[in-house]
């Protein structure tokens, strides 16, 4: 499997006996943009957190590029990875969170440079040049030396994207990146994501932005109740879903676009 691909097989996860993921399979080709949609509580966010092992899986396998995440195959057995090995595998996946999660004591620039300098041990001067270029790409060159608290939500989220990109990941995971934003700030974040997609970044985006999914996604995956109900080309799934549950969800979102987003936000916080 070449660089930038992601494969999930039979992912299972429960919290306190409540199954959240009940066997999720997903293939993402290099350069593909997959949007995951579905009602709140359908397991979309948990899926992303399991993909990069922020949550310990109950079962199933994750493969990024040609690397198995969470296990080291040796001598015909699967050895559970050490924390350090998981951390190294995680480098292949960038993650953008609903709540941005910027390091609030560091400037935008330091948020971006921290990983390359501390984790990859790269030359700080070179990293800083690259970080400034990345911030420029997300339209924040002028805000490099500001603290997160001095930035709007949309600006913070764009810094978060730059921070993830600075690690040169093979895959970018987006967990409802615009759900916590004021409506007028959603566009600027989506524009940055559109740019990444156009440059051939492999992306998995959990989102409620059906319009974005239609425009940018190659594939749309509809999840409900911890399983993938339907997946296929974006246009087909969004206009002519084969599952009644997908159709019902899409009809609901079209009728109450903001409500669905608000609901998701409340669930998170």
């Amino acid at each position, binding site marked *: 499997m070449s660089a930038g691909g992601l494969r999930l097989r039979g992912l299972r996860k429960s919290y306190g006996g409540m199954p959240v993921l009940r066997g999720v399979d997903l293939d993402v080709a290099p350069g593909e943009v997959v949007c995951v949609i579905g009602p709140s509580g359908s397991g979309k966010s948990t899926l992303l957190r399991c993909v990069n092992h922020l949550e310990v899986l109950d079962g199933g396998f994750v493969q990024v590029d040609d690397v198995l995440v969470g296990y080291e195959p040796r001598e015909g057995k699967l050895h559970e990875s050490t924390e350090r090995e998981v951390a*190294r595998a995680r480098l292949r996946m*960038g*993650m953008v969170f609903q709540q941005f999660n*910027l390091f609030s004591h560091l400037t935008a620039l330091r948020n971006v440079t921290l990983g390359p300098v501390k984790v990859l041990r790269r030359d700080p001067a070179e990293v800083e040049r690259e970080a400034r270029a990345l911030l420029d790409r997300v339209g924040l060159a002028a805000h490099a030396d500001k603290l997160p608290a001095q930035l709007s939500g949309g600006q913070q989220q764009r810094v978060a994207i730059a921070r993830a990109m600075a690690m040169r990941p093979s895959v970018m995971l987006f967990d409802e990146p615009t759900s916590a934003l004021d409506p007028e700030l959603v566009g600027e974040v989506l524009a940055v994501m559109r740019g990444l997609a156009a440059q051939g970044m492999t992306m998995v985006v959990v989102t409620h932005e059906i319009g974005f999914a239609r425009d940018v996604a190659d594939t749309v995956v509809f999840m409900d109740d911890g399983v993938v109900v339907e997946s296929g080309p974006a246009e087909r799934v969004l206009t002519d879903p084969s599952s009644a549950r997908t159709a019902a969800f899409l009809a609901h979102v079209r009728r109450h676009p903001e409500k669905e987003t608000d609901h998701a936000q409340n669930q998170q916080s």
Partner: protein
Amino acid sequence: MLDTLDGLDTLEVVRRRRFAARWGVGAVLVAVLGWLVYTVAVSPNLEWTVIGKYFLATPVMEGVGVTLVLTFTTLGVGLVLGAVLALMRQSRNPVAVAAAAGYIWFFRGVPLVVQIVFWFNLALLFPTLGFAPTNEVITPFLAAMLGLGLHEAAYLAEIIRGGFLAVPRGQVDAALTIGMTRAAATRAIVLPQSIRVILPALGNQFILILKGTSLVSVIGGGDLMTRAQQIYGQNYQVIALLLVATGWYLILVTVAGVGQRFLERWAAR
């Protein structure tokens, strides 16, 4: 009722009397305080010359020195041990969590003075420590330091833990997604941000330690209070020497308060 706002600016405005209560309360307080100071000051039983004679006397100054050394070593021991306990309490290792919780439960529950007397009399339990007689190892100063330090660590552990909790969990998640280990995330993300939360409580604790050292006088720990007691044990000027000690404690606490303000300003940069 006014029919119009026209012409109001020609009228004279009579201001409300705002500070009547302040003057009244102030006058009462000044009277009470003045009377207190006066009766003490003119009391024939209080020897002002004694206070003057002992305020800067060598034994008292030595006592101030011991009090300061005890305060800072207690703070040092408490901070190091408290940080370790807080980390244990936070860890995902249930044994470490239980051990830290047990320590905190025990050392917060046993009165400081009981501990100081216990360490001072350790020889009764273990006559020798290794090859040396216990009473040669456990000097009054060391007994005082052990009692104060172990006691303080329990309180500081909870303060430090509170500081850790004040840093949003999402930032640790974000640190993990850029390839950091939990330990690295704690060092680079959690610790620096928790210091700002910890400092105000720490200043308070410093003052409590400073005054708490006076308890070591029960074992003749050589601190300010011990010296005051030794002197009034000989000349019976109890009140005068208590006032000498009081003066010094107030001076030290005042200086500590100024220091705290500087530290907090530094941390808030």
